[in-house]
């Protein structure tokens, strides 16, 4: 599929936004301003931007621990600074600073939240898809999971049930080749994990995860199929994370030259080349995107830095739906 010039330019901007967002998050994580573990999606922007662009606001989204990008693009533009503020642990964060990088959610856009127990939401996704069918809506559910996470039994219980009941789910398997230090080929028998799809009698596709147009094409097909009652699809996006598993991981387990070869396949660079070579987009237009995004992300950072810490008393709110728990 080829996107129109304007569409591609828009997706280009989405990817640049993710990258600049992640670069700032990395910077403040390394400085210690952002607490906790941070898993960055740099290098994987095409999967995140492509998945987000293929869904509508009422579709259910379950991003993963590396899914800042999907979270960001799913949120309303005025809320994007609050995604960053959440990662900073601030009162103005989307979740009041109680969740942080691994637990951001925004129910108003049906971002059901990422979750730090890998594989956990893969079965939760059955429920949102089930509810769509039960309530006769055509909303689909998109669940992100990594190559390592596919080792969890929950992934397989989920695919089995969704396939049997033809639930509207997209299994977005983001294969970045590693689970922390372990290559997926050391922990799975297949050379492509999409092969699982055959066993579950659902379509499975291997997608070039660094080609935004390929991602949108394959994801769009799966969305349409799910919306029309055709059941789930397993999409395996082949990509690579440039950073270590978490910000600060030196990633000594990678063979020499591997990262460099993937940087050649940088999804942003590829989209830019396409824009300039095939669509005749001028350098200045590209620059304008970068300038806009830089200013935008800078405003998120300023907002996050200036925002107050949460009120300590907020720690005890919402443990139960109806009763209070004891505070200090």
């Amino acid at each position, binding site marked *: 599929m080829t996107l129109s010039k304007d569409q591609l330019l828009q997706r280009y901007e989405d990817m640049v936004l993710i990258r600049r967002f992640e670069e700032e998050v990395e910077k403040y994580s390394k400085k210690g301003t952002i607490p906790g*573990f941070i898993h960055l999606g740099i290098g994987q922007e095409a999967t995140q931007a492509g998945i987000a662009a293929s869904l509508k606001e009422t579709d259910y989204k379950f991003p993963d621990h590396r899914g800042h990008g999907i979270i960001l693009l799913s949120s309303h533009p005025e809320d994007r600074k609050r995604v960053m503020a959440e990662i900073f642990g601030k009162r103005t964060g989307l979740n009041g600073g109680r969740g942080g990088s691994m637990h951001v959610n925004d129910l108003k856009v049906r971002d059901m939240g990422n979750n*730090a127990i890998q*594989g956990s939401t893969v079965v939760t996704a059955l429920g949102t898809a089930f509810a769509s069918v039960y309530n006769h809506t055509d909303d689909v559910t998109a669940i992100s999971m990594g190559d390592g996470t596919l080792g969890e039994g929950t992934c397989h219980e989920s695919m089995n049930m969704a396939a049997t009941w033809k639930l509207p789910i997209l299994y977005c398997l983001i294969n970045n080749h590693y689970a*922390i230090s*372990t290559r997926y080929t050391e922990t799975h028998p297949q050379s492509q994990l999409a092969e699982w799809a055959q066993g579950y009698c659902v379509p499975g596709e291997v997608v070039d995860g660094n080609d935004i147009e390929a991602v949108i094409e394959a994801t769009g097909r799966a969305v349409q199929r799910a919306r029309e009652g055709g059941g789930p699809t397993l999409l395996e996006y082949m990509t690579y994370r440039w950073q270590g598993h978490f910000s600060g991981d030196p990633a000594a387990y990678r063979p020499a030259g591997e990262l460099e070869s993937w940087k050649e396949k940088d999804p942003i660079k590829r989209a830019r080349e396409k824009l300039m070579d095939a669509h005749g987009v001028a350098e200045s237009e590209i620059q304008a995107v970068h300038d806009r995004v830089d200013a935008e992300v800078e405003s998120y950072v300023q907002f996050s830095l200036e925002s107050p810490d949460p009120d*300590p008393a907020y720690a005890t709110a919402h443990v139960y739906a109806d009763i209070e728990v004891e505070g200090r």
Partner: protein
Amino acid sequence: MSRTITFSKALNEALHQEMERDEKVFVIGEDVAKMGGDFGITSGIWVKWPDRAFDTALSEAAIVGLSCGAAVCGLRPVAELMFADFIGVCYDQIVNNAAKLCYMYEGKASAQMVVRAVTGGGIRCAYHHSQCVEPWLMNVPGLVVVAPATPYEAKGLLVSSIRSNNPVVFLEHKGLYNQKGEVPEELYSLPLYQANVERSGKDLTIVAAMTMVNFARRAAEELAKEGVECEIINPRTLFPLDKETIVSSVAKTGRLVIVQEGPKFMGYGAEIGSLVSEDVFEYLKAPVKRVTSLGTPIPFAPVLEDEVLPHYDDVLKACREAMAF
């Protein structure tokens, strides 16, 4: 010969030395082989014994399930759960399988295995990486829950856990990994099911485990200046618990403060309080006090997490109240 090393190094040494001694011991888990574990505890093992260290996919149920099966065949698995919170994923294998096998096989075989699990809060990683899981396990007959507080205990207790014929959940508090202490170079073991009296005193008993022992020590120093002599008891094995040491200490001091990370309700503090009131009620000079976390999931932002976790000042306050009663 003894020297000063970190808690993590002590654990690593225990694994190396015990694997050297007993070829039935192997390690399994996520990133435990080539990388040597997320926290480096299994570092160097794969290099020495490439066929006794196994990296898996994210598959906690399979890791613990495989360990149960292998244990019954006479091997001694040491499985790693990168974070104790992931016990949720393999809870069935721990509770319904490992804990029941000795009973089921009438003692002819048992789950002689260790599940090492990284526990506790304080690293700003919110509710899926910070929980104190011990009460999830301490109501399950057949399980052993071990919780070292110092590098010396880490090494000695890990060795005895590996040698034990019971399924041991070995809790490593992430807040202790960098703590340093004296540890003998040679292989040794410390007894399971035995509490340690960290400090003797006649006025007040403080029971504390893992990082909370540090709070207890600090409080004891502070209170000593006020002329109060605290006795600190570190259970080392949380379950089955060494009741005797605790109860006889309280019979001597008449006052008890329990410091426990994790919510108050149904924490081990509740059990210890009941034991004391059952066995030595007549010796009590003050109500039993508990210092614990608040009853909430662990939030992310530092100000919120600090609000929830136990406060050192509350330990002092509880001790002073017990003395003043």
